[in-house]
Structure formats: C-alpha cells, structure tokens
C-alpha cells in the first residue's frame, strides 16, 4: 500500500474511533444497555471483514485452479488465516458484549453458533494444508475446499441467523436483512466496515510478500 493511502487509512479509522464515541448517538433500538451499543461499530465490521476474507479466499482459489499459480494458493491461504483472525476477534468481542447484555459469555445464539461453525470449517482448511505434504496436491485440495466455502459461508453468516430466532439486537440482525439504524450510526458503521476491509487487504498484502520472501530465502539455502 502506498504510504499516502496508509496514512489516509490511519486518519479514516481514527475518525471512526472518535465518531463511535462522540458522533453516533448511543441509544440503539433493541439494546438493553445502550452504552454497550457502541460495540456494533467494531464487532460487526470485524465479522463482515471475516466474511470478505473467506469469499476473497474462494476467488483466489478459483484463480489457482485455472492458472495453477502458487501465488494464488498463497493468497487464498493467507486470506483464510486473516479471516479466522477477524472472525475470532468478532467472536471474542461479541462474547464480552453478550456477558454485559445477556448475562453470559456464550448463549448458543444462532449467530454465535453459526460464526463458530464457520470458524471450525476454516480451521479444518488449515489442518488440511498441514496434512498434505506435496505442494501441488495440497494447493489443489485446499482450493477445492475453499471453494466449498462459497456455499457454506453465506449460509452461516447471513441465512442461519435470519431464519431462526436470535437474541441479537434487531438493528443489525433482522428478517429484512437491512441495517436499521439512525443515519449517524449507519455512517460510522459503514465507515468502520470500509476501514476494516482496507486493513484486511493491507495486512494480506504484507503477509503474502513476507511468505514469498521466506520461501525465496529457503529455496536459496537449499
């Protein structure tokens, strides 16, 4: 990422942080403890970013299957690692919030359960990669598995929490599938979503380059 764009991201996310506490109004429909509603500006975008990462991994996997370029396999694997990281962060922040709002860290709410299932699904992807030694076979199997995610992920992220009763507040998880909030809240939420997604692509780029360098150095040593 260009240094100028990186600083723009710093400014953008700093404004999101300030906006979440000083610009967006606290009371959101469906929250028992309105002060805790601010978590929506961080927890929800992290879950969205996790979803974007898993879909991006599927796209890179398709590209790998078409071109057999190891860079695409690496990009898919890194996307899934980062998707898991953002997913775990969303789950942990959600559990902390659930303890305040619902009195328990874990409630087997459909949303909590579905994100846990998707995290386990992608953890299995990493296990699969560890289990196959031959690089080409590993990349091919991993790509096909990541492609399955195109079916599994949208179902777990968007369908399951909306077809069953959820404890989650109405503004974000509802039958209409739309974000039902005041305009300032929506502005901060979507700005945060954009910031987190950009952060994902930046870290993804750095991690891919880092792995490429490590592989290059390992090949030189052999």
């Amino acid at each position, binding site marked *: 990422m260009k240094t100028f764009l990186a600083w723009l991201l710093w400014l953008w996310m700093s404004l999101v*942080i300030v906006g979440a506490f000083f610009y967006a109004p606290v009371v959101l429909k469906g929250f028992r403890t309105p002060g805790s509603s601010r978590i929506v500006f961080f927890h929800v975008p992290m879950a969205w970013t996790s979803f974007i990462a898993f879909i991006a991994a599927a796209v890179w996997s398709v590209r790998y299957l078409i071109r057999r370029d190891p860079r695409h396999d690496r990009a898919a694997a890194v996307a899934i690692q980062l998707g898991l990281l953002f997913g775990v962060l969303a789950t942990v922040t959600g559990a902390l919030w659930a303890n305040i709002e619902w009195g328990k860290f874990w409630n087997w709410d459909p949303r909590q359960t579905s994100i846990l299932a998707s995290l386990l699904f992608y953890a299995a992807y990493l296990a699969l990669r560890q289990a196959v030694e031959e690089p080409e076979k590993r990349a091919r199997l991993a790509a096909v598995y990541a492609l399955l995610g195109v079916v599994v992920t949208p179902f777990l992220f968007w369908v399951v929490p909306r077809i069953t009763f959820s404890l989650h507040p109405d503004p974000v998880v509802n039958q209409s599938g739309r974000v039902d909030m005041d305009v300032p809240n929506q502005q901060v939420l979507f700005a945060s979503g954009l910031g987190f997604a950009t952060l994902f692509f930046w870290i993804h780029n750095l991690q891919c380059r880092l792995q490429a360098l490590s592989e290059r150095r390992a090949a030189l040593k052999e």
Partner: protein
Amino acid sequence: MVGVESTANPNTWIVAINLIIWTGLFLYLLRLGSKLRRLEKHPEGEP
C-alpha cells in the same frame, strides 16, 4: 467545602487508549511494509 467533581467525559480515556493502540498497530504495519520493500530490493544472501 464543596467536593471537586471530574467533568471529564469517561469516553475520552477510552478513545485515547483506542487511538494509541490503533496508531501502534498502524506504525508497526507501516514499518513492516518499508522493511519488506527493502528486502525485496536487496534480499540478504542473494548474489
């Protein structure tokens, strides 16, 4: 004697800590990016 009450908004501290954490992560990534650029140009051990 009149008690002295703090008028500072408690959110100010939360925002300040969040900004410090975010800036720290940002500077780390920025530094990692420039280090990677340097290594990509002149990888150690390469002829």
